[in-house]
Every structure is written in C-alpha cells, then in structure tokens.
C-alpha cells in the first residue's frame, strides 16, 4: 500500500540523515612504505569547478603527508587540455593517472590506451556508479553510490508529500553518473510510490545557463500541480531557484538535489532549496587516493569507495558553517580511520 511505500522511503531518508561512520574499503596497508618512489598525476575535470578543485587540493595535501609525488593538471574543462595532461604524465614517467570527477575517458580513449601501453595505470575517480562498467578502457573505476543518491531524491519528495509527488527532474545525459542516479530515482518511485508523477528533462551541461530557466518556467506554467523540482546536480539550482521565484511559485514548489556544494547548502539554510544530499569532499579525496594507492601497491583494487552520503535540510544545514564550507558537518572520525588503514597512526 501507499503508506508502506512512504514508510520505506522514510526509513531510507533516516538512514542517511545522521553523521556517517567510517567503513574501511579494504585491508590495512603501509601506505608510506609502498608509495615511496611512486607518483600520481591527477587530471580534474575542470579546476575551475570548486567541487573538483577542492578534492584535488585535498589529495595533494594527503600525498604530501604520505610523502609521495602528486601533481595536478590545472585545466578549464577543455578535453584538449585533458589530452595534453595525459601526454605530459606519460612523458614525465608518472605511475598512475587519476581522472577526477568528470574527466570522462570516453572522450580520449586513444590517449588512455597510449598511457596504459606506456605502463601507467589509468583510474577514474568519482565518475561512475557502483553498478556501472569500467568506462573507456581504463584500469579501474573507483565508484560512488549514485544510485542511492538518486533514490534519496525520490524518497525525500515521497515522504514530504506523503506520496503525492509531481516532480520535474532535470538531468544531463552526457555525464556517466546520470544513468546511475536516474536508475536509483526510478527504482525508488517504482517501489515506494508507483502513483507518483515525474517528468525527466535532459539539459546538456553546456546549456545549463541558457536552458534550465526557460524550461523550468515553462514546465511550471504548463503543469500547475508540480510540487517538486529535482535537479540531480545541485549546481543547477542557481538557475532553478530564480525560475521558481519568477513564476511566483515559491510556496508550492520545492527543490531537492544532490552534491552538497557549499552555496546550495547556503540555499538550504536560507530556505530556497529544501534539501541537498551531500558528500564530504575531503572524504572523497581520502577514498579515491586510497583506491589508487592500492593499485600501485599491488593490492586488490576496490571499486566501492564507501564514501557516504548525508542529507542536509534546514535542520542541519548550519552544521556545514555559515557560509557553508566544503567538508564540514560530516564529522571527522574518517580521518583517523584512514590514517589507521594506511598505518600512519595506531
């Protein structure tokens, strides 16, 4: 029945509403010792996207702590620059290339192949969902539980409306994680609220600034009963929020989203966005590096990074700081957890 579905959704929401605990992705190993003389080269999808830039910078600090060589290829999201970065890392004898958070290897398979032929490991980090295949011929893919993130967005709206969702879902098909999130979202609606209505609209990332606003406005006009807008990536909300304000539907339409970008958590605190499923960027930095070090150390590669999700709503948004900061509000026992795992702390 419907109330069962709502209850199931509520349970799922509750599970991700508390500060997460550390879960080891694999066995412990002596990171300092086995990483000595090894080097990692990080190509972020774009260093002008704060989310990614922050992860890359935190990785740098951890690498410094562990005493191995780590370089970041600063770029502006242009695939030509990614390609230059790969060539650069081959020429300069790095051991592993980490394609961070959106540098999609399908955009440059020939270069990936060249790197692997030259003996480098190529890893995607924070790109695919747990259930997705390794893309573009890379060595391995360190995955994130996007599917659950998608289900949380659906479950949240189900709980809040008591099973009467009419949602506009904004996605960007060209990002690999979209498939995973959408499958989670659909599954949650199918099982917990088969009567809920939702429409999925694709807006390519490069068209966010021009197309999200008019699309959202027109959809809200066309269907006066819409009560949720779910942009699956929270950076879309800077265009979603004004579209809702301009149509004068601030009271009836709410926003639920994913990523935990600081300004969106600010929006949550101020009430323009209802909830944001967040990830701890510092945690991601640790987890991705952990998986990559395991490859270089000859250990069993991990696929599930065990990076947890945390729901921010107006009750806990302030724990992320005012204004919000990238890795605040998630607790910090994971730091000790990783240090123990890497045997730099007992």
């Amino acid at each position, binding site marked *: 029945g419907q109330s069962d579905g709502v209850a199931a959704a509520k349970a799922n929401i509750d599970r991700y509403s508390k500060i997460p605990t550390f879960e080891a992705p694999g066995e412990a190993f002596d990171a300092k010792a086995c990483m000595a003389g090894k080097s990692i080269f990080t190509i972020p999808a774009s*260093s*002008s*996207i*704060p989310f990614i*830039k922050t992860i890359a910078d935190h990785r740098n600090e951890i690498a410094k702590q562990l005493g191995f060589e780590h370089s970041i290829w600063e770029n502006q999201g242009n695939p030509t620059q990614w390609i230059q970065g790969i060539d650069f890392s081959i020429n300069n004898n790095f051991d592993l290339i980490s394609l961070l958070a959106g540098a999609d290897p399908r955009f440059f398979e020939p270069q990936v192949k060249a790197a692997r032929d030259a003996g480098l490991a190529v890893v995607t980090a924070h790109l695919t969902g747990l259930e997705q295949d390794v893309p573009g011929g890379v060595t391995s893919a360190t995955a994130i539980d996007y599917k659950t993130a998608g289900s949380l967005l659906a479950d949240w709206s189900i709980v809040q409306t008591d099973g009467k969702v009419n949602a506009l879902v904004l996605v960007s098909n060209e990002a690999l994680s979209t498939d995973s999130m959408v499958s989670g979202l659909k599954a949650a609606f199918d099982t917990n609220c088969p009567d809920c209505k939702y429409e999925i*609209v*694709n*807006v*390519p990332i490069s*068209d966010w*600034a*021009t*197309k999200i*606003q*008019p*699309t959202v*406005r*027109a*959809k809200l*006009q*066309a*269907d*006066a009963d819409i009560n949720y807008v779910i942009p699956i990536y929270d*950076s879309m909300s*800077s*265009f979603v*929020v*004004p*579209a809702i*304000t*301009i*149509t*004068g539907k601030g009271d009836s339409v709410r926003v639920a989203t994913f990523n935990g*970008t*600081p*300004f969106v958590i*600010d*929006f949550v605190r*101020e009430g*323009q966005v209802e909830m944001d499923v967040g990830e701890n960027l510092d945690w991601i930095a640790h987890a991705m590096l952990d998986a990559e070090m395991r490859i270089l150390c000859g250990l069993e590669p991990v696929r599930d990074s065990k990076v947890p999700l945390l729901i921010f709503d107006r009750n806990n948004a302030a724990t992320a700081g005012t*204004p919000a900061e990238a890795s605040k509000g998630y607790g910090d026992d994971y730091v000790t957890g990783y240090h123990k795992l890497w045997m730099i702390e007992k």
Partner: protein
Amino acid sequence: MHRIDIKYEAERFGLVFVWIALILLFGVMRPETFLTWSNFSTIFGSEAVLVIVTLGLIIPLTAGDFDLSIAQNLTLASMVTAILNARLGVPIIATIPLVLLIGMGIGVVNGAITLYFRVHSLIVTLGIGTFLHGITLWISNSQTISGVSSSLIKYVIVTRILGIPIEFYYAIILCAVIWYVFSYTAYGQHLLFTGRGKEVARLTGVNVGAVRMGAFIASGFMGAVAGILYTGTTGSANPSSGTFLLLPAFAAAFLGATCIKPGRFNPWGSVIAVYFLVTGINGLSVLGFRTFVQDLFYGGALVVAVMVSQLISGRKERSI
C-alpha cells in the same frame, strides 16, 4: 522618418507580426496554459538581464565597435556584488554605485586601448573579457557565492507591478532612455555617424574618439547593471553566469536591427527581438518538446526572421 508607406511599415513591424502569430499559434494549441497573464508575466520578467545586455551591445555597435567583454563584465559585476554584500557585509546601497563604477572603468579600459592603440575593438574586448573572467575566478575562488541581501532580491524580482517582476520595468526604462538618446540627442546622431563613416564624422566636427569612448563606457555601465540584476535574480553569483548570454545578445541585437528602424541597431527592436525568441522557447517547452528543439527554433527563427524582413524590404543592401 515621417513618410507613411505601407511596405516600409510592414518592414518596420514585420517581426512584431511574426511574434503575434507565434503567440496565437501557441495560444491555440495550449490556450489554458500558454495564453495566461501569469505565463506572460513570467516571460517578461525573466529575460530582463538579456535585454539589458543586448541594449548595452547596441551602443558600441552603432558606433561601429564590438564589446565582447560585456558578458564577462556582467559576471564580474555580479560576483563583486555578491562578495561585497554577502561576504564583506557592505550594504547593498553602497555596493551598487561601486559596481557601476567598476563597469564604467572597464569601458574606459576597452575604449582607451581600442582608441589609443587603434586596435580592432573585437580583439581588445575579447582579450579584456577573458582577463575579467580570470579576475572573477580569482576573487570568487571559482565558487558560487550566495547569501545576498534580500533587499536586493526584493527590488529585483520579488516586487511586482501588474504581476511582472520589477526588473522588467528597469529594462524598459533603460530602453526608453537609450531610444531617447539615439533619436533626440546630438550624441545619438554622433554615434550613428561614427559607426557609418568615421572619416565623415570627423570631417563634420564629431569628436569620434570621445563618442566611441562614451559608447564603451555606456556598455560597461549596462554590463554592470545587468550583473547586479543577475545577482538580484538568482540571489547568488556564479563565475560563469554571463558567458552564455553573449551570443543570444548578439543575435537579438542584429535581429532587432531588422525591425522598428530597419537597418539600424535600435533599442525597441532589440527588446522585441529578445521577447520574440523567448516566447518561442517558452511555447516549445510548454508544448513539451525536448530541449534540442529550442536550438532548432532559435537558430531557425533567427535566420528566417532576417530573411523575411529582407524579402519585405526588397532585399536591400544594408551595411549591417
């Protein structure tokens, strides 16, 4: 100007008729949702920023110069507004004049380099625009900055007149001012002469340098106004906000030059062009078309509109 001539009037108002036809078409297909005042107030309220950028562009365009930096000027203005107000706590009343000054300062730099070094404005403003983008990324640390004072938001979109957010009226007022300047002041005439023949303008005693400098400053000012309104609309500033407005604004400026005063960049034409294109996009979304159809419409409408306008005018050779 004062002649009454049916063909000429058809040419002047051709785009307006096409716009009305489009509204009727969508209206017939979706009377209950499309043809409502709330839908139109949404359409009008939403594109004020684009209107202002377009108005900003046509000033230097009339004087024969391109200002490609206006989009990045907007982004910087938006970011500076957010940082000063939300992060440093400067009251909005002090922030606005400061940001406007920065915008005009950027106009001065564009003008000074273009004029003193006699370089094509296209490359100068492209370079300055890229430089400004660098500054925006720097001061914002590539972050979206939110938390802007609600009084700004109130005086940009929350307050409504006839159901339309107030920023629409700001855009219309700016349009009226530019129209007055273009039509009824010596400066407007100087702009026009400068754009069509610098040598002729100079020989008739127009201080071409000062006129062009004035145009750059005006577009810098408009860029800053648009930036402030952008921040007020979204309640935040993101480091790539303006980038996507540049080409649509150029499209609207050139499309606008096919109506009202055909053959000249003109403010009312620009406004009509913006809202014609936006109406189409809105209607297609209301009808539930996929988003790529917006691009097909946008590109197609642009080309067809100028073609039709040229057919009406007998395919007249024009300098723009």
